[in-house]
């Protein structure tokens, strides 16, 4: 302990000395004043309007050719103002300004609201007319008008083709491996220390007559890490029931608590000991991060669980929980998909499931063919990614052409 304090004091003094040495940054020079031209800039030309692609039917795209005074000529253009109306014969005052873009930009996406009562409502299937002005310092150009155009719904977002392909490939692979597993083909999975430790830890708890603490993190039921943790909780609960030991599951969210109660209950039922399940073993603490941690830390020191399992979504509380667990002498197994919290778990816990390992844990614990099938599909996709990376980079090195940078961002399909 004295080393900890010494180290801590050293860090503190370093921190303070660093703060004393800090220097104030110099302020930015003032911006140059803009020149005021005496004449309005030339207007933009060739204004076109069309339905905005990949939207909910409340958007129009306006495009134009730049004003001759934009970056050339008198260089007097500062921005472009875009106006919209339902009737092209409306007086200027009835044209509604919908947006402004800076000089050099040739397009504007007018995305409106869906509700008619809203101030920026843009009606669907209605003729709309647009005006574009080039704006100088205190003056604007003559008008350039275009229209009509109608906004319509789109039923497929073409920018999401990569995601669709990915999903289909994943689905096909999963179904294939599930079928293989169902036929009895052995699907190998390498041992994972963190998962193997769970069995051992439950046995230790039984020997010591101490409970197991299972923390699902501070996420809600809307976090996929929490859902992954439920799948592990069910299997842990089953083993806990088989070993006839007890478990404590404090929850940070009432929905999470409700699902956790069902999950633990199912685990006990699967083990053939439904009567051993105690409703109060899965309970709600509070929905706020630090009060939750304060309560769980208290529980750790009072109950001295043999094993603490932290799986799910965690933030700054990861270290608070894990270090308290160390003080209580518990075996600790943690897992999260939060990259920023993994270092603390790695340092303070006996076993840590890193990122994807959290999602694989239920398949490891269950060893059911259906679950192992999805694990195999994940590996195949990783292999595809690796092969593509090597092949495409080799192609780039051979051809020298930048044909693969950002391959998923542009709609090349």
């Amino acid at each position, binding site marked *: 302990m004295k080393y900890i304090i010494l180290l801590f004091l050293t860090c503190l003094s370093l921190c303070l000395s660093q703060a004393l040495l800090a220097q104030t940054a110099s302020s930015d020079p003032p911006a140059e004043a803009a020149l005021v031209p005496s004449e309005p800039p030339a207007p933009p030309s060739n204004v076109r309007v069309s339905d905005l692609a990949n939207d909910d039917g409340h958007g129009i795209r306006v495009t134009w050719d730049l004003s001759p005074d934009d970056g050339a000529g008198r260089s007097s253009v500062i921005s472009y103002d875009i106006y919209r109306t339902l009737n092209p014969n409306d007086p200027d005052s009835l044209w509604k300004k919908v947006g402004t873009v800076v000089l050099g930009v040739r397009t504007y996406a007018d995305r409106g609201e869906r509700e008619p009562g809203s101030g920026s409502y843009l009606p669907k299937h209605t003729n709309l007319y647009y005006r574009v002005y080039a704006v100088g310092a205190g003056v604007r150009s003559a008008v350039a008008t275009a229209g009509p155009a109608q906004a319509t719904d789109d039923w497929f977002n073409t920018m999401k083709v990569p995601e669709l392909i990915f999903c289909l490939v994943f689905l096909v692979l999963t179904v294939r491996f599930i079928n293989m597993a169902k036929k009895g083909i052995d699907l190998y999975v390498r041992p994972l220390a963190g998962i193997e430790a769970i069995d051992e830890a439950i046995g230790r708890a039984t020997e010591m007559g101490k409970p197991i603490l299972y923390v699902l993190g501070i996420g809600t039921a809307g976090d996929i890490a929490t*859902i992954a943790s439920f799948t592990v909780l069910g299997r842990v609960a089953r083993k806990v029931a088989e070993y006839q030991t007890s478990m404590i599951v404090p929850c940070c969210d009432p929905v999470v608590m409700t699902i956790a109660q069902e999950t633990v209950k199912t685990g006990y039922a699967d083990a053939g000991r439904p009567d051993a399940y105690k409703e109060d073993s899965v309970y709600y603490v509070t929905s706020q991060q630090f009060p939750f941690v304060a309560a769980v830390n208290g529980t750790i020191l009072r109950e001295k669980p043999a094993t603490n399992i932290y799986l799910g979504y965690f933030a700054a509380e990861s270290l608070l929980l894990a270090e308290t667990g160390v003080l209580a002498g518990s075996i600790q197994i943690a897992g999260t998909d939060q990259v920023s919290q993994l270092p603390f778990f790695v340092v303070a816990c006996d076993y840590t499931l890193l990122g994807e390992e959290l999602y694989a844990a239920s398949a490891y614990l269950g060893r059911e063919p259906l679950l192992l099938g999805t694990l195999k599909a994940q590996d195949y996709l990783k292999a595809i990614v690796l092969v593509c990376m090597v092949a495409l980079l080799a192609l780039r090195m051979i051809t020298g052409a930048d044909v693969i940078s950002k391959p998923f961002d542009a709609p090349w399909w």
Partner: protein
Amino acid sequence: MKQQIPLVLVFVFGVLLAIQYFVPSEPSQRFYEVALDGLTVIGIFAMVLGIWSQIHVGYNKIKRRAEDWQYSVVTLVSMFGMAFCGLSFMGGLNGPIFRQLYNNIFIPIQAAIFSLLAFYIASASYRAFRARSAVSTVLLVAALLLMLRVIPTGPLADPINQIGSWMLMVPNMAAKRAILIGVGLGSVATALKIVLGIERSYLGKD
């Protein structure tokens, strides 16, 4: 009925919301908003279950005169006291007593618990520095280099600073990418297992 309907609901909502991502049309967007509203609204109703759980656990402890039952009294009284101060006639969230309780009890304790991290990171560092294997030595060296960045080390300050920044920029980015790619695959796999009904322990059994 008890098992099949929930499974059908999981499948239907799962598939519809997965497809919705690709469909930008107005009905699809409205469906998405209703689903998000659903998660929020059910969360509100679930709050009743949460409060019920708290009262149930606290009350049982007090009734049984279990160890430390007095603290359950403190929890329940402060919970209902705070909720009472947040009622309409007390001024709601901006009521004077509500704000006083929040600022003078909640905030100081919150700050104190957060600052415990300073002590805990010191003891965690101590443990990390007792490198037990080659892998933990790598972690230790990287951590030390980053810590040394804030210490005045004279002529070594510049190289240490540059190496530290490079480590944060380059290997850090590589590892984060590898983890995120894995997380992306893992979360899709988990979601798929749920939607297809391969994982169903959360739906109870009877």
